[in-house]
């Protein structure tokens, strides 16, 4: 079964019914190219939303507030009222005032996560580049939710043995950012670097052992996906932080 670009777009927009969605996801697991196209739709959608969101935080000009409040001297600017009759007959379904779907991060992350699980945990063997990595090259991923919290607060030296997100090593990069490796319960590992307020995910790859072994797992070289290791080697300045340096870096909110 092949999917049209419109179908993939509708999938990315959450517009497919359950059956079609399952069909797309099933195919995605076996077809990295398809997954990459979906990721592209998702990224574009997110980019477009993000480009206009800052308008929401701008101060609303007084003249608009006055118009809404019905201040008498508010003037008609663009067009005089043409008496356009608004046909509401087809906008009748009672709905909450909030948009049904905005590209908020939690939602995006969930989709990205399902994409990762669908694609990476599937049958394909990851060579050097996963669809997720490709997607990252397009736009760069930022850690959110639990991962963001773990990267910001969790210490490798004190984390619980069964924590769902394990922090590996922390280090200062050549460009002066703090970076930390992490591994997830589902077998993925990656590297996040603190740039401004965000943890940018520089690489995410599947760990060769499948899942991170709990307990004494300390990012032993053999268990780190090669793609992550390469990134670490490329970026690291000096050696990794010891427990004391790691704690000090956290106190400083990972700012140099």
């Amino acid at each position, binding site marked *: 079964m092949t999917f049209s670009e419109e179908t993939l777009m509708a999938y990315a927009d959450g517009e497919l019914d359950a059956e079609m969605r399952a069909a797309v996801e099933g195919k995605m697991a076996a077809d990295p190219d398809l997954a990459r196209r979906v990721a*592209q739709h998702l990224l574009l959608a997110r980019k477009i939303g993000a480009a*206009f969101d800052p*308008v929401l*935080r701008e101060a609303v000009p007084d003249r*608009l507030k006055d118009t809404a*409040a019905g201040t008498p001297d508010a003037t008609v*600017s663009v067009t005089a*009222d043409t008496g356009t009759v*608004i046909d509401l007959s087809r906008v009748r379904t009672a709905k909450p005032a909030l*948009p049904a779907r905005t590209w908020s991060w939690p939602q995006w992350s969930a989709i990205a996560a399902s994409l990762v699980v669908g694609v990476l945990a599937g049958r394909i063997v990851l060579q050097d580049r996963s669809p997720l990595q490709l997607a990252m090259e397009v736009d760069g991923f930022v850690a959110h939710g639990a991962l963001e919290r773990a990267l910001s607060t969790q210490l490798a030296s004190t984390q619980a043995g069964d924590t769902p997100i394990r922090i590996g090593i922390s280090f200062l990069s050549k460009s002066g950012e703090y970076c930390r490796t992490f591994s997830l319960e589902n077998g993925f590992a990656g590297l996040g670097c603190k740039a401004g307020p965000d943890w940018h995910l520089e690489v995410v790859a599947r760990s060769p052992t499948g899942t991170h072994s709990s307990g004494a797992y300390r990012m032993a070289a053999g268990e780190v996906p090669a793609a992550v290791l390469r990134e670490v080697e490329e970026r690291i300045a000096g050696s990794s932080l010891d427990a004391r340096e790691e704690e000090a870096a956290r106190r400083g909110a990972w700012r140099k």
Partner: protein
Amino acid sequence: MSNATESIRRDIAGLLPRLRRFARAITRNAEDADDLVQAAVERALIHTGQWEPGTRLDSWIFRIMKNAWIDELRKRTRHNRLFAAEDEGEHVGVSHAEQQIDAMAVRKAMVQLTDDQRLAVGLVLVEGLTYKEAAEVLDIPVGTLTSRLARGRETLQAILSGGDTRQEART
């Protein structure tokens, strides 16, 4: 002023940030955008009787904005006036430099779309309406909405990935 009108005014005031965002997505510069919001709010307040409580107020006003904007475009074409210059970017308060560059690129790319495509992209990707809701606002079948959205995205994708910057006006 009746309580109902009072309450619609309050609700509209609360929607202003989103109305401005949508206007910014479908017009070409911030000044036109705010003029459009003002005109639409004025229209909405004159016709409050046409809004049915229980339906989406935002959709209703988006529709008024769409109509007002199309009227405005027609008027400008009739008077053979040039569009006001583009001025994407400078009014948008993004702190992160990289984000700002991205955002600017998106807003520039949006200008390359046809008005129909821009409306579809604005309602669905900027305002988060479902295809069905967006189609209702634009008074078109869902299939038409979907194809405008797909073509708009195709153009945006091409421009933003640094590829060709074709300006076909397909609808």
